[in-house]
């Protein structure tokens, strides 16, 4: 059994979610990586622990991971593989279903656990239920949720690199890349952020809410808020996390002065690690949290900033 994992990258670095996909693939058998673009990335891919071969395709067509040429490339390589895998991120979600259609396979998106070579667990209904599904297709096409698997080590492997090409897929003029606009604020998007720092009514005022800014800066975090904080006018409603606001699932979610109304929990409960700081030991947020601290957030936040700056 061999799996092909699409290793997408940004600024010369293989994305962490793709490294998690390697870990998931390792449960299924031998792992080959596919890199499109710069040769240096293929080199980096060759040293990922657990990857035994790297397929490398070059060409301008792949520069922006456009779905049409990339899917065509993967399909041209698919015959040797039992599993075709990518991260469940903007690239993988865009490309792999197209690959699956061309292979006449029903894809399995957002896998959070591998049970058997053909059996996987994936969330449905926005994570309110987990379905265990078995694929009856000869090949399995999967995307992997990054938070569910540790990233593979970027060192320790010594894969061979093999050049591949797919002329057919790069000829047609389907879609053309025009531009990219990365969010220029230093704050990442709430939905895309690795860390979210969030405040509730306990923040007391619009002014005091800014106590979270330096903490968010250090952590490279997005800033969120509970409905109570938005209602009180501390922050704009774009920050609202909850059933009726944004739904986030970062690696780390830090809740300050948030009581944890169920509507709020619905918007963040899938975060990998939840930290709650609240004066009220009875606050429901502690039921959802992994780590809690019963304390005044106005003491804790500056201390956290100091502790994190030092290290």
């Amino acid at each position, binding site marked *: 059994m061999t799996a092909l994992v699409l290793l997408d990258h940004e600024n010369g670095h293989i994305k962490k979610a793709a490294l998690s996909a390697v870990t998931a693939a390792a449960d299924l058998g031998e792992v080959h990586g596919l890199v499109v673009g710069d040769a240096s990335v293929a080199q980096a891919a060759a040293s990922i622990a657990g990857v035994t071969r790297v397929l490398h395709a070059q060409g301008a067509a792949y520069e922006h991971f456009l779905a049409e040429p990339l899917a065509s490339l993967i399909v041209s390589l698919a015959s040797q593989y039992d599993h075709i895998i990518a991260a469940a991120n903007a690239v993988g979600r865009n490309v792999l279903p197209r690959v699956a259609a061309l292979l006449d396979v029903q894809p399995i998106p957002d896998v959070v656990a591998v049970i058997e070579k053909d059996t996987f667990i994936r969330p449905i209904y926005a994570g309110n239920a987990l379905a265990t599904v078995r694929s009856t297709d000869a090949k399995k096409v999967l995307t992997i949720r990054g938070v569910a698997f540790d990233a593979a080590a970027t060192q320790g492997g010594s894969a061979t690199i093999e050049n591949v090409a797919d002329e057919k897929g790069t000829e047609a003029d389907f879609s053309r890349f025009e531009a990219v606009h990365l969010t220029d604020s230093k704050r990442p998007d709430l939905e895309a952020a690795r860390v979210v720092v969030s405040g509730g*009514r306990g923040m007391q005022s619009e002014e005091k809410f800014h106590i979270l800014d330096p903490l968010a800066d250090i952590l490279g975090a997005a800033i969120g808020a509970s*409905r109570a904080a938005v*209602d*009180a006018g501390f922050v704009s*409603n774009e920050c609202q996390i909850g*059933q*009726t606001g944004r739904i986030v699932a970062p690696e780390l979610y830090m809740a300050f002065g948030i009581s944890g*109304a*169920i*509507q709020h929990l*619905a918007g963040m409960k899938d975060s990998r690690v939840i930290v709650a700081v609240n004066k009220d030991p009875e606050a*429901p947020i502690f039921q959802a949290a992994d780590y809690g601290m019963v304390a005044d957030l106005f003491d804790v936040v500056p201390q956290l900033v100091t502790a994190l700056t030092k290290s």
Partner: protein
Amino acid sequence: MTEENINDSERESLIYDVVIVGGGPAGLAAAIRLRQLSSEISVCVIEKGSEIGAHIVSGAVIEPRALAELLPDWQKQGAPLETPVTTEEMFYLTPTGQMRIPMLDKVMPYLANHGNYVVSLGALCRWLATQAEALCVDIFPGFAGADVIIEKNRVVGIRTGDMGIGRDGKHKPDFQPGVDLRAHYTLFAEGCRGSLTKKIIAHYGLNQGADPQTYGLGIKEVWEIPAENHRPGLVQHSFGWPMDDRTYGGAWLYHFGKNLVSYGFVVGLDYTNPWLSPFEEMQRVKLHPVFRRSLERGRRIAYGARALSEGGLQCIPRLTFPGGALIGDSAGFLNVPKIKGTHTAMKSGMLAAEAVADAYATQRVEPATFTDRVRHSWLWQELHAVRNIRPAFARFGMRAGALYAALDTMVFKGRAPWTLHFRHADHETLRAASLCQKPFYPKPDGTLTFDRLSSVFLSATHHEEDQPVHLCLKSSSLWKTVNWDVFKAPETRYCPAGVYEVLDEEKAPTLHINAQNCVHCKTCDIKDPTQNITWTVPEGGNGPNYPVGM
């Protein structure tokens, strides 16, 4: 109220012969009866819930009498009356024990449930809606009646709410003005304390000569329990603990459907202790062995709440006005001692339909024969026989009230030569917080008992957040001097949805309204001590989304 000032060119109107406001049992029965009587009368029903049944909460054990009169082949047509009542028990509760009332059929004959069914009223309404649609009734869920149109002192229809108005009152890009639904006759079937009904009653003074209406708040949960514990058709009621002698209230528990249990609690809104929390009463009664038995190892799947009219006959206002009528619980046709209102609501809708068809044929403005039709129907007889029971509880307390009720029923057989009256409206009954004792409410255990917010979550209530707050506080200083200083914010306790919250209790207490949580029960509109809170309709389609089972 809108008085002949329609010059808004954006506003469209639709014309029907009859417009019915509210898709509950009364409104749907009226719609069906109208189309049965005449295929020439065009009828539409508007419903503020996102679908028919979305805002329906009821126990419910129903008596199929009115349904059989309306649709004699209801069984063949698959009406969702699937669980006949098999066993009935009434308990007087003490904190740890209970006494089962013997000879229930003699002491409380109005409670005899032989031939009745445990149903989901939401399911029944959905079914009635399909019957109505088959008769070419236009049903529009997701549209709220926001205003009554009155021209030359005649009701000529209603205006649906505008959509797409921001919290600041400004039009958003998706603004859509409401539509005028114009009709020869408009029937108000909004249920208890309807917001348009309230305007109509005030405009025409319909409640002159009637006792002030008294209300109850019913809070309900649906549970799914293990099959081995399920006894379909088991009907249980309780009174006594945890209510004190001055407070009317009790629990119900019905086994129905596929391993489902309906559990709920009703508190009379004439209660006096501002510390009382109907929600927490309903939670703690589940811990009593009588109810715990059924619910243990089950899981809660739905939650909802709704006020109901408890006053009975003495409180029913004048039923008709130029251009329409009040039907169902909008008028107050609930039979409280019987703990049933569906059959009376449906019957009142059917009788109103007959009166409207008659007025339509003879071109009269007011369907005035409705009142006479009610007086000569079993509906009247039934309500007349029990008219003294609820006021006796209000006047004599629970134990003496129960004795009186037995006397009135067994000796006078409901024909006592006097009628007891209600003296106070429910908003006048609270005593100062400092004079009352706080009840002890145990902390939710997360398996049998729960907190408010996780409960509200199960109601699946939803309100577009960027819209004006639909719970209007007329004066915040009045709130401070009366609600806070005297009663210590009773709204934070009686609201079963956690809408009301006091901020900054220590320094400068203010009332915060979480309108998004509202489950449209109307209790605040009823119980606020100075009538300082007015419940208005939010955007159509907002509010709870109760599943079949409620």
